[in-house]
Each structure stands twice: as structure tokens, then as C-alpha cells.
């Protein structure tokens, strides 16, 4: 009898420098959610009852789970979201756990790292906000978690390329400070 084992999106996806820490997030549960036609109001109400306001464009919910606006009437949930059983008939859901890889970027060098990679204005990924953008041609999310802490979500298959991009930028920032 066999037992399949999980692989991480990337082996060795961590990088630390005096100015930033880059950490590969473990495999996390993710779900895309879209209310069926006419069910947006009831879906919102359900989330409001559990203390969550579904975020509008450019915003993000950070707690109790991460929620990002994927598109018009569509959200991405990450982490431990509320039990959706009561609204099962109202929504379409798709498991997206393996679609994305995530990195945590933290440290005072973070803004300098991100300004090397993200064309969007820094305000768009400040704390509590999220931006869908490109990092070295990869479609990514940059989410502001705290003043000097961000989560970057990118396509799982390109985890290595995304890590290399982040790491090179972090190395550059670090080296320029030491000059």
C-alpha cells in the first residue's frame, strides 16, 4: 500500500539578510468563492454575521483568515475560513490550495525590495491592502500585513522564479546599504 507525500512549492525557499526575512509559507488551504447570480447580498450577510466584511477592490481582510478580492463578485480565502456549509447552495467554490505559493517578506528593507519588483504604488500594498500585480512577469498578489510585513502570492509552478526575483532584490538592497 502506498502513501502519497506532499511536496512544498519550493525546497529551501527561505532567505535572511540584516534588512529582510523572506520565508516560504507552508502549503495552506485556499479557496475561491463566487456567489451565484443574485446571491451576493445573502453571501455578504453570512460573512458579516461572522464578523467579516468581504473586501472591495484593493482591500484585504487579514483576520481571521486572509480574504482577497479576486475579481468582480469573486474572492480568494486563505487559512481557516468560517464553515461555508450554510451558504453552500448560494456559492461556487473551487479549491485553490495548490494554485498558489506564498512568501512572507518582513523587515525594514521590505519597502526597498518591493519597489524594485512591484510597479504599483506602495500605498496599494500598505497594511490591510492588497494589489494584483506582476513581479518579473509573474501574476502575483502583494498583501500588506503590517508596516514592515507583506505576503506575496504567486503561481505555484513558478515558485522558484518568484523566490529568485525576491531574493535578488533583497540581496541588492542589502548590498547597497553596506556600500
Amino acid at each position, binding site marked *: 500500500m502506498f502513501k502519497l507525500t506532499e511536496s512544498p512549492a519550493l525546497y529551501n525557499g527561505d532567505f535572511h539578510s540584516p534588512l529582510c526575512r523572506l520565508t516560504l509559507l507552508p502549503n495552506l488551504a485556499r479557496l475561491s468563492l463566487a456567489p451565484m*447570480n443574485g446571491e451576493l447580498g445573502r453571501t455578504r450577510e453570512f460573512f458579516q454575521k461572522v464578523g467579516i466584511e468581504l473586501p472591495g477592490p484593493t482591500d484585504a481582510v487579514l483576520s481571521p483568515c486572509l480574504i482577497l478580492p479576486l475579481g468582480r463578485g469573486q474572492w480568494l480565502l486563505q487559512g481557516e475560513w468560517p464553515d461555508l456549509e450554510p451558504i453552500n447552495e448560494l456559492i*461556487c467554490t473551487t479549491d485553490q490550495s495548490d*494554485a498558489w505559493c506564498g512568501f512572507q517578506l518582513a523587515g525594514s528593507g521590505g519597502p526597498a525590495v518591493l519597489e524594485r519588483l512591484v510597479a504599483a504604488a506602495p500605498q496599494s500594498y500598505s497594511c490591510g491592502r492588497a494589489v494584483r500585480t506582476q513581479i518579473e512577469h509573474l501574476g502575483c498578489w502583494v498583501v500588506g500585513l503590517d508596516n514592515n510585513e507583506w505576503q506575496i502570492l504567486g503561481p505555484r509552478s513558478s515558485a522558484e522564479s518568484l523566490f529568485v526575483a525576491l531574493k535578488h*532584490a533583497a540581496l541588492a538592497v542589502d548590498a547597497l546599504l553596506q*556600500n
Partner: protein
Amino acid sequence: MSRRVSPGRIGKKPVNFSFDGRSFQGYAGDTLASALLANDQMLLGRSFKYHRPRGLITLGSEEPNALVTIGSGARQTPNTRATTQELYEGLSASSQNRYPSLKFDLLSVNDRLSRFLTAGFYYKTFMWPRSFWESVYEPLIRRAAGLGKLSEVEDADQYDKGFLHCDCLVIGGGIAGLEAALEAAHQGKAVILCDENPRLGGMELFDSAPIDSVEGLIKELQSLSNVRLMSRTTVQGAFDHGVYSALTQNTDHLAQPHKAAPRQTLWRIYSSEAVLASGAHERMIAFDNNDRPGVMLSSALRGYLNYFGVLAGDTCAVFGCHDDARKTVVDLHAAGAKVIWIDTRSAHEPVDGVQCFTDARVVDTRGRHRLKGIEIEQGGERFWLPCDALGVAGGWNPRVQLTCHQGGRPRWSNDVGGFISGTDLPPGMRVVGAAAGEYLRGNWSPVWDVSKRGSAFVDPQNDVTVKDIKLAHQEGFISVEHLKRYTTLGMATDQGKNANTLGIGVLSQHTGNAIESVGTTLFRPPYTPVAIGALAGRARGKAFKPTRLTPSHEFATRQGASFVTVGNWLRAAYFPQAGETHWRESVDREALAVRNAVGVCDVTTLGKIDVQGRDAAQFLNLVYANGFLKLPVGKTRYGLMLREDGIVFDDGTAARLSENHFVVTTTTANAVPVYRHMEFVHQCLAPNLDVHLISTTESWAQFAVAGPRSRELLQRIVDLEISNEAFGFMACAETRLLDGTPARLFRISFSGELAYELAVPARFGNSLMQTLLEVGADLGATPYGTEALGVLRIEKGHAAGNELDGRTTAVNLGLGQMVAQTKDSIGRVLANRDLLANSTLRLVGFRSDQQILTGSWLIPPGRSSEQDNTLGWVSSACYSPNLGCYIAIGFISDADQYLGAQLRAVSLLDKVDVGVSVVSPHFIDPEGERLRV
């Protein structure tokens, strides 16, 4: 001999460097130019065409002459302006365009031949024999003329890119820029101020007056949190929508930069507002031999003295037609130099103790490797005076380059004596300070050309003389744009900063036309030269583009697979085994394993789109040409998608997992276009349908398990009854593996064999691949790659990307009946156009004992290999290990007529001409029995 008379504004910390192998000492804060000048090294280079000795002309980024090579090998940078290169310990510079040495350059013979080497001489000579141009003449000319040379070694430096946002971008850190930045900052705007120099302050720094006010402004700006001051940063271009490019030189001034530090960073700056405060630079006057080392601009002579503490000569002459000349005279005199002042004007404020010639002009100079004397003309008389430095004040050119980057045209201002920006500025930009002509309006008497022999240099970088301009005009190059291209005036690294206005002035003087009517050429980005490496940034080598790895990449790597790039994906092409010496051996083995036992292939790269909603079936019924409304739950259907124009867009499958839930698969190449197309249909054509789309390509690792023993293998893996009766052809199910892993199983076949596709969450992909092969080892389970995949599908006659090439229709593919006429679908109406519907082009097969090349044209025997004789083309070809011959599929017109006939497959490109017989495209199991067992 040292020409340093004071520490200037830079201090006295010694720095050692070398030039052409000779050791020198300068001070920290020096540029290479100022340090060489301080060491009395006046000769710095050779000119482009005539190899004339050249020295400094300016003290900034507009320098045309003092171009040197910095470093060597992988870090060699040619054409570096000595005037902007900051000095650092151990700097090694060398002169350019000379042989064997700077002082003794054999090619200076060109100077003697200059009367024959006028503008465009090579257009008129070297005409015969024609074949000699590329093989002999051009290489010789290129060797004789030129700037620095590349090392031809890969650049060892790293480069960086980034994005900045602000409300107000201030370009230039002189007094006007500093004031503009402060004003914007006080209004609460986010401000970025860029200046190309290492130190903010602009031209104020080079004057003798105190700079307290400048330092005060800088201090105040530094204290503001909404201001970012970026020195060593040159704004290179102004682009649409408030986008500016800027280059920061991070390490070019450092002796030992951190090894990971990017040498330069190219910024894209977004700003709704820009203030151009780039200042102005002085210009030359055309007089004979005005290019000798020691002849420079008056402001440069003054700047080297005041900022760097270097007095360029013992006897300094200043030749001007402008009030600014006086400032230089005053400072030189105060520094103790013997000063001669020659001014074209009849009256100006004198300077006590300075010999002054009014209504006079310098008409010639002498000295070979450095200036030794000047010839002055006054009152009809000419006489020589000795001097070893000459500053020329010919007027000022406002730096308006960035105002032109979006088509703006500068306009001439008699008041300023230069071109200032027009009204057509880039949106959001305003011009202030000297760049707008402020401070420059003074007592100016226009003087352009005072030469007698025409050997006065207008563009020293390209060796363009007054004589060249006259000749070009005489030959009909009247437009200033034509003049530029014929003479190369204003080209190369300084991009006309020195030459353009002077050239236009000379043309105006000699044609008698006003400068306004002569016109001007425009400037384009970049403002100063940018290293190619900076444009590439981090996008080099492995980081050139992102890579997508399949879930089983690690397994494939361990197996020694050979990979092929498919879009950004890296896919295993084949898995060589010990003893196999040629890729064909591996591919043949893998293809045979699938036909005879079972093979496993990672097909994750195929696009996967989740389609959910109450109207999901209706939606798919619209986007696919064939029907999907009645597809039962638990079944998969092959689908054909057309473009609006009726041409085939993509093919794939749609599996109905539940009443309102489908999974669509696409070809690898069209994963994104199909998703985009479906979103377009949803959002624009059928917005009322209750349907929700999301890509799941990344989410699921999917494996084709194909071959007569595939069922046996999968029954050991999945927790589902998969007998033919329970799980028939085209069945699909959401299930679990025996270990509980969630999975999806589809009974679909691309190879024509009994086959399945098994999907698990991507994180289990690598483990599943390994497990399938281990569990199926006794069944002969074999991993196969894209090459065998291709062989198998050609043997079966399945169309793929090569056949769906944007030109073919369903009819061409033999799938005309799939386009349902009883329902509406995208592309149906236009697919019924006569031209498409009645096309006789059909997909057929070809066999041969010789290799058939993809892309070959099909020509009947006995006809010449010409376009008119072609019947069609070969779209895919391979060797079939199952049939033991070469096979191909492709398209021919009137296919029915040629079935069984002999044709020629001709590739003119590869010079291959093979005989092929036309057969059915289904080489294997045409009845489809194998896949239904």
C-alpha cells in the same frame, strides 16, 4: 607638475589612480577629469575620425572629447566621460581610439588627409568593386574610426530595476530645482528630486560665491519625510502618462563595492507633475583649431578652479561674447593666473589688472598636444599671444532635452541666445531656472563662426567642421534633419548637447536665414548614455524569464530527463536510459511501451478551467461548437472551440463533475487565451448567465496513464471501480486514491490506447508519478515525455497546436460535423461562409521510408518546387516505431483525389525532397477499438 592651487570644495584626502598605465594622485571628490587636469595631463584622447589630440571641453555630462575606458575585462566600460567619472582608489583608466599610444598615434595621418575625408566621403568613394564594401572597406573604416571598444567578455556587474511613485518629480538639483522641490514639499506633495551629479547644488557649486543658501535648502529638504533626494541619478527620458526613466549610479564611484550591489539601477518613476530644472550648459564658438587640448568652455575653466581647486593654465585666455565670460575672468584673476580677455562686444565692464581686447575674436590656435598660443583678430589686424588654457563663452544652451521626448519642439529665444522649450511640453511638466532661460538673459552678441579656413570644429565628437556643414548645404542637404544625417552632426554619446545649437547657428550664418527658420532637430531618450546591462536589469541568465515547473519536475530531474521549453513550462521531453545513445532510442522505447504496456506522462501543463454555476452547461454550449447541454454528469466530451471568424481556436475536453460544475481542459499553449476568451464571452456576450470561471491549471497535477495495461495499473491506485462497464470511455469522476488522497479520474485518450488522466492536488504530483511507476513496475510502467506523446498522437491522427495554427477550420480538420447547426455558438455563422465551408483542404496522413520534415510543402511528382504547384503542407512529422517508417500529418487540397497517391514533401530551407504516399491520418486503430476496451 601640479595645477592644484587650492582644495576647492572637495578637501584633500589623497586618492591614487592610473591613466594609460601611469600612476597619478588626486583627491576624494575629484572627477577623473579634474584629477588629470590637476596633474597637468591635458591630452586625454583622440578624435573620432581625424585622430586629432583632444582634451577636456566641459566639466559635466555633456563632455564630447574626454572619453576613456574604465577598468578591464568583464568590468571594462568604454566611452566613459572623464568629467563624470568620480575618482576612487585604484581607478584604472585608459585612452581610446589610438595606436600605438595616445601621444604617438599612427592614424593621426588622417588629420593630414582631412581635406579628402570630408562629410560623406565614404559615400562617394569606395564604390568599386562593390563586393569590397562589406569585406574590405567597411571593416577598415570601422577600425580607423571610432570610440572605445567592448571587452567582448560577459559583463560581470549586476544591474537593478525599480519603480518609484511621487506627486512631483524634480529633475535637477541646482538652486531652481531645490526651491521647486521645497515648494512642492510644503504643499504636502510626495517629492522625488533627481540630480545626475554626486552632490546637489548645480552650477552654484562651481562659482566662487558662497553656497550657504544652497546648503540650507538641501538641509531643509533632507529633514522632510515626503522628500526623496536622489543624487547620481540621471532622468533619462520622459514618456507617456507621467512616466520617467532614471538611472542611479550606485557603485561606479566605489573602489570596492559589495559584490552583490547592483552597479546601476534603472528606475521607472510615475509622477503626475514634473519640474525640469536641469540647468544649461555653455557652448563653443567655431574658430580654426578650436579643439586643441587646453581649449575648453569658460564655465569649465571656472568650475575646475572653484570646485576642484585646479587652475588649468598659467596664462589663461577667455574668449566670449557673453557676460558670463567676465565671471571666469574675475575668478581666474583672483586665483593668480595671468588672464587675457578677448570679447566680441565693444563694451563691457572691465576687470582691473586684466588685459582685455574688445571688438576682438580668437581666430586660430597653435600647439600640438596642448595649447600654446592663440591668434587674435582685432580691428583688421591679427596677432598671436602665448597662453596654455582658453575658456570660450559662446552662450548658453538650456537643457531642454526632456521637453522633446514626446514630440515637443524647442523654440529659439533671441533674448536667451539659445533654444528654450516650446509650449508642447510633456503633460504635467514645467520648466524652471536656467533650463527655462532664467539667469541667462544677458548682454549677448551672437557669434557662431569666426573661422577663416573652415577647420573649426562644430561637433568635436564626430569631427564635424564648419567646412562639412557648408559642403552638406552646398550638396543640397538644406534641412537641418538631412544635415544631421549626412554629416553626423549631433550624434554619438553626447547626442548633440555641444554641437546642435552651434551647428544650427553656423548654418544660419552662412545661409543668411534666421535661426528660427533653420529649425532644430529633436532630442530622444536617453539623455545620457545608458549601459545595455542597466536596460536588462536583473533579467539575465536564469532570471531572463520565469520558469514554470511541472509537479513531477523533481522526479524527472532525478531520472535524467531531457527538458524542453513549452511557453514558460519546462517539460520532460524524454527519459534516457543507460545504454541509449540517441534521443530517438529513448522516444521509440517510450512510445512502444505505451502501445504494448503502460506509460505515464505529466500533462499538468494542459490548461484547466473550473466552470461552475447554474448556467454552466449553457455557457459551454455557447463557447464550444459542439453541444454540451445534454452531457450527462460523470461524462467527458471532446470540444471544439472556434474564433468569431469561424477558424478553429482550440480543442480540449469538458468533464461534467456535477450538474453545475464542469472542468474544461485546453491545449498548453492556449491555456491563458482560452481562459481570457471565456471571460470575454461571460462578461461581454453573455453577462446574464450564472457562470463562474477560475483557472485551476496550477492546482491539479494531472497524469496521462496510457496503454493496454493502464486499467490494471490504475485499479491498484484509485478507490473506484474502473472496469469498462463501470467506467466506460469518456467517463469522469471525483474520487480518492486508495490512500485517501482526493483525485479526479477521466477516461480520455490522446494516444488512441486505453487511457486515463488522473489528477491529484499539485503538492502530491511528484509523489504520484513515483508511485505510479513503482506500483506498475511489473506491468512495464514507463515514464514518457513530450516527444513520445507527439509520436503517439501523430500515429493516431490527433490534431494539436501544429494543426490548429490559426488558419484551419473544422472542415479542414475533418471535424466539420462537430459544428452543430442546431444551436448558436461562437464562430458558427462565419464558419459557414462559402470560402471556409467549401474548402477542400483536409487533414491527411503521409508515409515514407525517408524522414519527412515538418513544414515541407507537398508537390505532385514532376512539378517544379514552386508556390503555385503546392497542394498543401506537412504540419507534424515523426518516426513511428510501431509502423517502422516515417509518418506525418498535414493538409492538402482536394484530399480525396490524392488519397493513395505519391507526392513529394519538399523543404527548400533544409534542401530535403522526399517521396511520400498520401494515406488516412489515422495510422493506428482507425476504428477506435483499442481505447474502448
